[in-house]
């Protein structure tokens, strides 16, 4: 009897799981290991102390968070009306327009970033005279399609009759928007925000190209530490990045859960 060796469907996931352990889990554990050891390989908090006692490193982090917040807000403000109009059949026949909005995503993003920078240089704005503005423009250009898509899907799910009911019951257009449309589209806003926020902090190419190397974001500082062979420092920075990601995941998760319970409560 060869019963022990019999094929089972669940065995198919073995190569997948092995791959994940080898190339996802172990590398992250290594990063954590390096973050809390020194050059000799002994346990130490050197990297952590170094980070918190160097003002430039902390200011890079704060600066990145600030740029990320600005990019997220700009993308949402520009993208929200676009998504709202596109979800309406009157403007977006056969869904062609939404495809046009997503299409730039398929052009190589380094090429696109270079094109944006060349356009700005042509218009007289460049990393030389306005590195901050140029970086912001580059970020918004790159992440706008990523904002529009989740917002658009959220807008398609809007409950039209609820909006009509609100205006029938005497709500002014502004009230209809703030009390009804905005809360209804909140999950879309949250997912759009996370699509922009995290990549902005960790981006390297966009800030480096647009500001011509003048602005260093958190992602670039990780890159630089590793290029200079400061593995322990770099690993600690990467660990901070992981923690930021984890926190933002928790926030997203909480919001999407709350949304469900609110919905469940009203029905």
């Amino acid at each position, binding site marked *: 009897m060869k019963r022990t060796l019999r094929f089972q*469907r669940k065995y198919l996931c073995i190569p997948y799981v092995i791959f994940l352990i080898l190339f996802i889990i172990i590398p992250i554990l290594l*990063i954590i290991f390096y973050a809390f050891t020194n050059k000799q390989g002994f346990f130490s908090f050197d990297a952590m102390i170094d980070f918190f006692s160097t003002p430039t490193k902390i200011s890079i982090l704060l600066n990145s968070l600030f740029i990320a917040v600005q990019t997220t807000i700009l993308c949402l403000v520009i993208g929200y009306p676009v998504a709202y109009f596109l979800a309406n059949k009157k403007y977006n026949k056969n869904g062609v327009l939404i495809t046009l909005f997503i299409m730039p995503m398929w052009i190589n993003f380094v090429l696109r970033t270079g094109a944006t920078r060349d356009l700005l240089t042509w218009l007289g704005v460049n990393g030389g005279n306005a590195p901050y503005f140029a970086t912001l423009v580059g970020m918004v250009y790159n992440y706008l399609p990523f904002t529009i898509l989740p917002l658009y899907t959220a807008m398609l799910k809007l409950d039209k009759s609820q909006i009509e009911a609100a205006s029938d019951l005497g709500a002014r257009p502004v009230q209809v928007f703030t009390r009804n449309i905005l809360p209804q589209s909140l999950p879309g806003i949250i997912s759009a925000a996370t699509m922009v926020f995290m990549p902005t902090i960790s981006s390297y190419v966009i800030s480096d190209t647009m500001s011509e190397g003048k602005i260093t974001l958190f992602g670039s500082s990780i890159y630089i530490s590793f290029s200079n062979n400061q593995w322990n420092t770099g690993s600690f920075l990467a660990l901070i990045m992981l923690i930021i990601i984890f926190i933002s995941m928790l926030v997203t998760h909480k919001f999407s859960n709350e949304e469900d319970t609110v919905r469940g409560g009203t029905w």
Partner: protein
Amino acid sequence: MVKKIFANIYIYLILLLMYLPVLLLIVFSFTESANVGNWTGFSWNLYPRLFQDQEIMSALGNTLIIALVSSVVSVVLGTLGAIGTFYLKRRNKRIVEGITNIPVVNAEIVMALSLTVMFVFMGTYIFRKSIFSFYTLLIGHVCLSLPFVYLSVKPKLQQMDPNLYEAAMDLGCTPKRALAKVVIPQIIPGVISGFLLAITLSLDDFIITAFLRGPGLLSGYKSIETLSTLVQAKIKKGPIPPEMRALTTLIFLLILTGVAVTTIYRNQKAKKIKTHSMKRIRYGKF
């Protein structure tokens, strides 16, 4: 009425702004000046120059090879992984899905660096030489796209009728045969969309490539250059090289054709279904 005009103006204005950088490159691909904004007369010359440019052509070749190979590997691993995980016990399933989500939310730079650290570690302590090559690059790209293949196959498995597999077994199929004949055909749309997603992710990637590449492929003894790394190296020094403007035009045309074909195909299909169901209603065949 006012609202409609406003909405249309807004939509097309944003659309124009979004396409402006690319349009600029396209317009200036028909002149030979060194940078955009400087028109030196109409000419087609950039196009033949593009195809004679060894550097760009080999980078393009490398990019396509990596995208194809990594997507095929991702699709095979990810599809099998999704099927296998689907039949795991609930607790194990949750663990595997939790791990699958890590690369989805993880920053690309952290993923690239953690893999680099591991490969350097392996290179110094196990292999005693640098192990960066096409294979390390391949592993990086597979890490990038694998979870997305998994996530696009999973919903198809959930929609599947579980009785069909059992029926195939009852009718005398071996489990492997039942899997190939019953399960795989039902999840194929998810597999295809996972494959396409994997290709786009790989084509667009810069950071993982920059960190994990080694010598190989069309670059020979030099480090593998993909389109992303080549463009990045060029734009660090100056404006986008003229030949790349021609390349952008060609890429744009390719995407435009692809989008047009799929849109027309989809609309025709929708129309066909519509007329078909109309006929059925007319003949009372419901």
